[in-house]
């Protein structure tokens, strides 16, 4: 092993934890885990036909409509687009991607396995409300594989640009990190703050975590697979990738972490069989002709006794009068729709910024990744395409849809032409898979910043990293209060954790609970 570059710094850091550190305090960690999260029980007072206007058909709107319809409210949903679901959008044979100035129609083979979740794609186990509706509406789920150790890591700065298996990379990184920590245990202050038994436990874990030898050194691991043999013959270990080489790529932070946060990704996630929009259509088919498509809202007027919503359909402006209104139209689009909201409400709406996201996918002629022992998971690439995903479903089928780019900052894909986007994904992808270009059929791309009726990915509230300002908290509360008790803003935009379906659904539940309380307190 080459000398660890920042060992001193590392030890200093450890020393800084000292005996008083909260990390080392006994007892704190117990009972840390919240009890399992449960979906809210919605029990609305049955209602005889109060009229409700629901603007947009995002998952928050559909949830609202479904719950209210079950309780006997008379719901009408107004949707500007030709399709329901907003950011829950699945592309397959025949689908139109309605990106402004970049209209695309998907010409993939007509096969239920061949789809691309262009927006939301993954459901974590603790997103109980999403899961609850999947169960209630009989949307079949399957496991989504978020991590595969046989997938690749590719960075021009690493290994001469040749891809390295995730497991080669992560085994070595784990080995070196464990070795450094184990060494520091022998001589740092940390030692004195641990009991002998605690030290032993920690050392034991490190040995196993890093696959260290008896001398607590990392000398390669069979976890990275064998250079040769391994079944009929003894396996021979692969060479160790030197720490200095591992550190040539910043991708370490992606490769080593599959669980980004409690609610976020993990190795095990779920997806609906056949595409994320199965959830959308499960709602929408039950709501039937309560939904009006290509009916953009053009004005929202809150009155004393209800709400008047103007919308356009077939070139004619219609007005829908309702007792209540639930609105999931993205705030930055509401800014362009005449309304009579109070000034502070409008200011808060105008404040929220729209995030960027870009995804691309193609139909692969053959499941070439399976020949490379990959059956799902993510390849990390140090280029704007960032990620390549392999479908975990229909293993050994004929074709499959590969997610060929997923950039969460958007890079400059938004402005790129379709031709440039395609060349970009092929150029970077073929550094990972030499036959990529030959395998890629009919790539489809989606820049959410340019999607008609969306113009963005996740709403962004906080302007600076590290938390919300008081002013932001205040504006958030303003938007959570219904205007005149009549107009509710819903969607992940009115939550503090945007970019999740769960948040959008919970925003609907929150608004519904408020409505129910008002209705119950009305004189009979």
């Amino acid at each position, binding site marked *: 092993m080459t000398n660890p570059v920042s060992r001193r710094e590392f030890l200093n850091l450890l020393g800084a934890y000292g005996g008083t550190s909260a990390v080392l305090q006994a007892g704190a960690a117990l009972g840390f885990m919240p009890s399992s999260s449960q979906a809210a029980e919605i029990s609305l007072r049955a209602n005889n036909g109060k009229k409700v206007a629901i603007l947009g058909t995002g998952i928050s709107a559909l949830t609202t409509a479904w719950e209210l319809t079950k309780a006997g409210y008379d719901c009408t949903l107004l949707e500007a687009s*030709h399709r329901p679901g907003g950011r829950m959008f699945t592309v397959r044979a025949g689908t139109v991607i309605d990106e402004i100035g970049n209209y695309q129609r998907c010409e993939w083979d007509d096969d239920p396995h061949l789809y691309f979740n262009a927006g939301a794609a993954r459901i974590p186990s603790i997103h109980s409300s999403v899961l609850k509706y999947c169960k209630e509406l009989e949307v079949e789920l399957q496991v989504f594989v978020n991590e595969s150790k046989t997938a690749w890591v590719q960075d021009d700065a690493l290994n001469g640009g040749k891809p390295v298996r995730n497991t080669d990379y992560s085994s070595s990184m784990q080995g070196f990190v464990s070795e450094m920590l184990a060494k520091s245990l022998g001589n740092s202050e940390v030692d004195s703050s641990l009991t002998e038994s605690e030290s032993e436990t920690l050392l034991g874990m490190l040995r196993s975590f890093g696959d260290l030898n008896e001398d607590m050194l990392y000398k390669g691991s069979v976890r990275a697979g064998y250079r040769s043999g391994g079944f009929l013959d003894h396996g021979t270990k692969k060479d160790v990738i030197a720490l200095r080489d591992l550190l040539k790529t910043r991708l370490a932070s992606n490769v080593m972490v599959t669980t980004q946060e409690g609610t976020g990704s993990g190795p095990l996630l779920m997806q609906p069989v056949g595409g994320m929009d199965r959830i959308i259509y499960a709602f929408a*088919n039950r709501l039937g002709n309560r939904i009006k498509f290509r009916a953009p809202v053009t004005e929202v007027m809150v009155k004393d006794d209800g709400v008047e919503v103007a919308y356009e359909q077939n070139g004619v402006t219609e007005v829908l009068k309702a007792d209540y209104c639930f609105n999931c139209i993205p705030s930055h689009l509401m800014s362009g729709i005449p309304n009579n909201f109070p000034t502070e409400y409008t200011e808060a709406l105008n404040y*929220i910024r729209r995030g960027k996201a870009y995804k691309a996918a193609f139909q692969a002629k053959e499941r070439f990744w399976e020949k490379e022992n990959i059956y799902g998971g993510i390849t990390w690439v140090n280029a704007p395409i960032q990620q390549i995903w392999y479908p975990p479903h229909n293993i050994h089928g004929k074709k499959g849809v590969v997610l060929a780019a997923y950039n969460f900052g958007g890079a400059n894909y938004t402005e790129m032409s379709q031709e440039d986007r395609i060349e970009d994904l092929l150029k970077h992808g073929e550094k990972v898979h030499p036959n990529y270009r030959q395998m890629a059929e009919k790539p489809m791309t989606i820049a959410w910043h*340019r999607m008609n009726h969306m113009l963005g990915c996740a709403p962004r509230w906080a302007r600076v990293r590290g938390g919300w300002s008081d002013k932001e908290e205040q504006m958030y509360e303003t938007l959570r209060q219904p205007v005149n008790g009549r107009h509710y803003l819903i969607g992940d935009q009115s939550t503090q954790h945007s970019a999740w379906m769960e948040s959008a659904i919970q925003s609907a539940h929150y608004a519904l609970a408020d409505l129910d309380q008002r209705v119950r307190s009305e004189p009979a």
Partner: protein
Amino acid sequence: MRNLLTATTLILSAFSISAVQAAEGDVGVEAAMDDRYCTTCHGVEGIGNIAVEAPRLAGMESWYLKRQLENFRAGIRGTHEQDTQGIAMRPMATKLSDESIEDIVGWVGSWEYVPAHTTIEGDINQGRSTFQSCAACHGANAEGNETLGAPALAGQNDWYMVTQLKNFRAGFRGAHPEDTYGSQMLIMSKALRDDQAIINVVSYINTLQK
């Protein structure tokens, strides 16, 4: 441009959804395939949208709108790397056909003039005296002058005019060799000493709304 496609119907036929209660059947309608996208960004009937920084189109002269769309399409506008808003607009226009541009211009022309809300406050008196040199082309009431190729300014979003004046002055707009009118504006904008001068003159223009 108007070939209609049945998108969602096709999608749904590939799947038999169990337990569908609604008798109405499949939902969704065919997507519109024209290029009448403008209102998503520019607001209902082109009233402008500050949140996505898309200016008011309602009341914009058809000759001016046409020229700008053509400039965006040809890369005469919206290609300078510092012209953030122009860069956002350009890809929307690159694929427009002449017929589409004509269709859009006619459509936008059907919208009523609506003066934009004012969002800035500067020194109106200072602005008035600066405006005298603008009036030569844009008219004493900022009503515009087609012969000179100068668009109306009255009623336009003030935040948009501020951005554009800054862009002209910095050479982010109007520097393209083929941007004949833009290059005149680039020269004229040099008369605006600083950002405050821009805010003042735009504040004065705010008082001229029809």
